[in-house]
């Protein structure tokens, strides 16, 4: 059975805040995602600081396509599919480094840094001086936004700036507006046996930290997210395995008081999380001073400047503000996702600032992070349960504060469409609503029109 566009229709209900659970493990839906989402969308590849010199390369993932991002002799950047034009072998086996050319180790076809085929063994004797191919296939479009390199496999995709829109742009500005930022060497990469959409859903989820990550807060390794009023969430019958009343440390919980800011936008981009006032300095770990820079005020605008939210540039590019990190959730299979973590510091950071940034990143996120240690098993088990004949019929519920999020969509201004609210599932639900539109494989203009946020979420 092939999933046709009309069958993609009933998988997400905006009205009920419900999803069809099979979207998290169905192999046909996964294959369709690869073509309708990952072969069309602009995807983050790497940051320019990772490929400073000519010949520097970094292998990025675009769905299951592997792309060599290569600094050219003239300083420009090209994205080359890492597959030989002959038998398809990977022409580069290293994940990053510096090269003068790429020679395929199968038969020796050799490509220059721009991907042009420049050498073929036996060209004269066997191919009669006719080059048998032009070169490595390139991505359809490649562009950068303030050092962040993106590409798309779709020649008809709108320009990067238009695709990012206001929400995608301010998401990157959370890092870029701090000045001249660079990637710390070492990209953490690890594999979680889960569907990629669980990992994306979770990045917006400010309801889970106080339970999932309770151990990190209880032992004082990280401060719990505070509530501006000093309140803690009511436990409402939540009991520990021993039957004791659970105690929640903090949590941003003030009803409709507006401690959270959500941004939702065309193509499915979203940001969700506490305001800067609500999060405070997180026990002295977070320096907000860059937000006072004139260029930050200008670039972010008044609403995004107030946001300490987690941003997702659809489909899988998560920007997280505490330690200036960017995380990709790379689909490898219906039940297999690769997580990559990029960590940024200011180029002129002092050794102390750099050490604090690196330590914060290592100890919060990544596979050994005090927070992220606990995440993978939640996503893996949630994915696994979508395969039971009965379990998969239970709808996935995204109904928290459903219908209470009034979207302020100031089309003329700089602020992305936003909602002021308490903890919610608006950004997750919006992501899935947009995901369903992507899955329909409609035209870019139709996709854009159908992902304009509604007045209420």
């Amino acid at each position: 059975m092939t999933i046709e566009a009309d069958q993609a229709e009933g998988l997400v209900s905006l009205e009920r805040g419900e999803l069809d659970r099979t979207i998290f493990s169905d192999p046909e839906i996964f294959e369709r995602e690869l073509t309708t989402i990952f072969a069309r969308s602009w995807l983050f590849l790497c940051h320019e600081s990772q490929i400073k010199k000519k010949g520097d390369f970094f292998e990025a993932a675009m769905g299951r396509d592997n792309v060599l991002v290569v600094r050219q002799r003239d300083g420009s950047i090209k994205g080359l599919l890492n597959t030989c034009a002959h038998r398809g072998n990977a022409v580069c086996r290293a994940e990053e480094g510096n090269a003068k050319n790429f020679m395929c180790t199968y038969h020796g076809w050799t490509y220059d840094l721009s991907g042009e085929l420049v050498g073929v063994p036996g060209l004269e004797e066997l191919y009669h001086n006719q080059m048998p191919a032009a070169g490595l296939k390139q991505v359809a479009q490649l562009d950068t936004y303030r050092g962040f390199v993106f590409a798309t496999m779709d020649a008809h995709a709108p320009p990067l700036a238009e695709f990012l829109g206001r929400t995608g742009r301010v998401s990157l500005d959370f890092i870029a507006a701090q000045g001249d930022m660079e990637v710390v060497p070492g990209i953490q990469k690890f594999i979680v046996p889960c569907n990629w959409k669980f990992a994306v859903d979770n990045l917006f989820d400010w309801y889970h930290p106080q339970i999932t990550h309770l151990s990190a807060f209880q032992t004082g390794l990280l401060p719990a997210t505070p509530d501006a009023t000093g309140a803690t969430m009511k436990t409402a019958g939540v009991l520990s395995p021993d039957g004791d009343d659970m105690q929640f440390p903090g949590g941003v919980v003030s009803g409709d008081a507006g401690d959270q800011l959500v941004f939702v936008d065309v193509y499915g981009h979203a940001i969700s999380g506490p305001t800067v006032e609500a999060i405070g300095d997180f026990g002295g770990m977070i320096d907000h001073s860059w937000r006072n820079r004139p260029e930050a005020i200008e670039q972010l605008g008044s609403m995004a400047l107030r946001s300490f939210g987690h941003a997702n540039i659809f489909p899988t590019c998560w920007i997280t503000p505490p330690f200036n990190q960017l995380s990709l959730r790379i689909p490898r299979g219906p039940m297999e996702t690769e997580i990559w973590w990029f960590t940024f510091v200011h180029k002129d950071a002092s050794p102390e600032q750099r050490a604090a940034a690196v330590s914060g990143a290592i100890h919060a996120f990544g596979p050994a992070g005090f927070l992220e240690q606990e995440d993978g098993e939640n996503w893996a088990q949630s994915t696994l349960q979508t395969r039971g004949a009965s379990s998969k019929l239970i709808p996935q519920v995204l109904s928290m504060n459903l219908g209470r999020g009034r979207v302020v969509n100031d089309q003329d201004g700089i602020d992305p469409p936003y909602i002021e609210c308490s903890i919610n599932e608006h950004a997750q639900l919006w992501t899935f609503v947009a995901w369903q539109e992507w899955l329909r494989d409609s035209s870019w203009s139709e996709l854009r029109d159908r992902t304009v946020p509604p007045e209420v979420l």
Partner: protein
Amino acid sequence: MTIDQSLDQAIDAGLLADAVRQFEVERFYTTEAALLDQRRFPEWVALFSDDVHYFMPIRRTRLLRQIDQEFTRPGEMAFFDETKELLQGRVAKVMCGTAWAEDPPSRTRHIITNVQVVAEHADGLDVHTNFLLYRTRLKSEETTWIGSRRDSLRRHEGSFLISKREVLLEQTVLLSQNLSNFF
């Protein structure tokens, strides 16, 4: 009698000292592994000196001519970059009763082999070991980590304290959903 004397002469004093030293080191690592597999984490973390640096770099697949850049270095990103205080924090976390990644607890087995004393200093030794850390979780989750540890051991009260540990995994993309165990 004559046979015994010839044996005594045959045993080189230096070799005997090496054997005793090897025994001391291997006994130390066997004890350490047992503490980990028995989840006696407070006793395990007490084996580290207060000034310990515990480091697991990120490993990258690099071309042979750039293999010197295979591992990240201190100051760059890593999987573990720990002080004693942070290690104690990890132990407190895993034992606090709400660290769900280890509840139900992982079943682990640490196999420590190829114990090689590579240098001896006035106050201690540099020792390389190979390890196999086998973990199963829940019904069917299975993880195997193989790698090497490069330790500095400081002589302390008839045994050792670990004053430096570098853990080098034989993986680039980590093939596990987390690192909630100790190496």
